[in-house]
């Protein structure tokens, strides 16, 4: 099993038990998509709807990073995770 740290912000935090940071445990060889699915199983369909489109792809504007790198620059939802990885999930954000 591997342990992965999940961080999120703003309205996604409210959908994930009001927890900005949390740790989840996944089987060896798990990918980013597995981590997100596990979160959806824990927090229910509202989170699932916020994160995923019907096609199974991430909704527009949802950005996920593993150890700082956006998953689109890795293997998307298939990006593999290892013990101690930090996963950051953003709702649609912009400005600055």
């Amino acid at each position, binding site marked *: 099993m591997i342990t992965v740290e999940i*961080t*999120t*912000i*703003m309205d996604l935090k409210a959908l994930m038990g009001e927890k900005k940071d949390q740790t989840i445990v996944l089987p060896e060889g798990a990918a980013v998509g597995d981590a997100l699915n596990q979160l959806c199983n824990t927090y229910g369909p509202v989170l699932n709807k916020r994160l995923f489109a019907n096609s199974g792809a991430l*909704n*527009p*504007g*949802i*950005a*996920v*990073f593993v150890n*700082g*790198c*956006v998953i*689109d*620059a890795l293997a998307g939802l298939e990006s593999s995770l290892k013990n101690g990885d*930090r996963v*950051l999930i*953003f*709702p*649609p*954000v*912009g*400005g*600055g």
Partner: protein
Amino acid sequence: MFQGGYMGKVLRVNLTTKTVLVEDLPEKIARDYIGGAGFGVKYLFDEVPGDVDPLGADNKLIFAPGPLSGTAAPCASRIAVTTKSPLTGAVGMSLSGGYFPVELKFAGYDVLIIEGQSETPVYLHIRDDKVSIKNAEKIWGMDTQITQTIIKQDVGDQNTRIACIGQAGENLSKMAAIINERRAFGRKGVGAVMGSKNLKAIAIRGTKEVPIANPEAFSAARKFMLDAMKQSPVLYPEFSKLGTPMVVDVTSAMGMFPSENYRNTGEKDYSETIGVEASLSRNKGNEHCYGCPVGCTQLKLAKGQGYEGGMSDPEYETYYSLGSVVGVESVDSIIYNDMLCDKYGLDTMSVGVTIAFAMELFERGMLSAADTNGIDLRFGNHQAVTQLIEEIAFRRAGIGELLCDGSRIMAEKIGGDAGDFAMHIKGLELPAYDPRGAKAHGLNFATSYTGADHNRGYAFQEVFGIPVPKAYDRFAVAGKGWLTKWNQDIRCATTDCPTMCGFLMDMAVPAIAEQNTADLVSSASGLALTKEDVGKVGERVNNLARVYNISAGFTRADDTFPKRIIDETIKEGGSSGQRISQEDLDLMLNEYYEARNWAQDGVPSQQKLAELDLPEAAALLEARGLL
């Protein structure tokens, strides 16, 4: 003769001779530069030699909205002011929004050039074709809000739109801004240039309409833009409800919200105290720029800690500059101090970062209580920030005089190793992103023609994870030279020149920004620009500005980072382990110059200048033996 978009006129006001001239806007300039920053850089290059004293009579202030300003295109009430910056010595270009930009168009002008220097305080009053230079003795010494109120009374028209300086500009602080309504041409000391000309304000009222060359095509392009905005996952409701302060939570989670003069970025989570939740709790409503359906500006009322009654609209950058970078966790003090900066006409960003520099020197024992006029300059002391803003605005003897011209000059005055802790590039204080956590965003600071300026090439790929033109690892170095060129050129061509709000480009049309600009500008003006033409405008402006900066004495050595960014590693948080070594910087710079077809000393090549039809730039470099 323009069919639309442009009013076709340049208004030239000489404050030395008190003369007013109206010239035609050449079509070639419109075609090659579109407007806004493009016009500014072109007129600056042609008319203000690189070696002039920025605060002397030979410097000029070039105000230019774009062809879309004053039309029904959404979010196009923007205007650029371009000058030789007294803070950096490079091109100083700053954009503002609100209602002032469109008024210049409605008065009938695409460009306003202010030349010379008045001997006594004056303000400029433009009412369509009637242009007068008026006595401003009685408003000299007043703050920016009272100045706007009095001028409206003076001209007997509450709908007059005004851009003015406060006490900071009068006192020639190189961090002085020009304020219009509650908005600002904030950065690069443009307010000091206005002060040096004894020009307190520009008051405009126009009654003309901006014609549209091809109404049908324009209406289709406009609808396309509005639809794209509606489809944006973030503009509505998030951005219009939260505005830029939401980015505090974003960069904090990424470990790159800079804190305490960058000495401990990532070590404390400022989003807990000055993040979006805290700032939202002070919200009183939002404000829109002219013609903007989004209204991202969040008006806030301070609640406690002695800051009651403070009302302002701090943007993301100000939560950093008057917050985390000075170690302050009081959202009320940020609102209040933002209001003070607007009132006195100061750039919140440069002011906060310069105060952070002073705080670090104070904590290191390099500045004593005697140097600070007895102010306890420890990080986190928000009352000290309030006091220093006043000292700076009035250039008071001692600490005010020491800080009021920004970090670079302050470091020179103190001497020794002080400069090691000064967080600026080319004299412009760093924006709210630790470059170590976003390498292309950082490389843009190092290479932007205005100094450390996030808006000249915003790397939304790194900050928001937007995969356009493709996805990038924010920590990687390879590929960032190419990406920085792309970001700078597209930003310039699609926001700074036409003049459209930059937020739209990131949030509504990032993948098709050039086509969108071509469609809107062509249908408004009849100039028939292709998306390739638009792309080239961005490149042209960045190249011409580069050559201007070379003529002002800048070299590759100036495309760099503060010592701390190169020497020190971020220790904790989402960007822990990151730094930008000299080797990393060299790799990125080499790639950037190569992408731009510049020589490795950062000088544009003959071939590139010919391709961009910039013979004037080539001639300047040839005359200096650089080509």
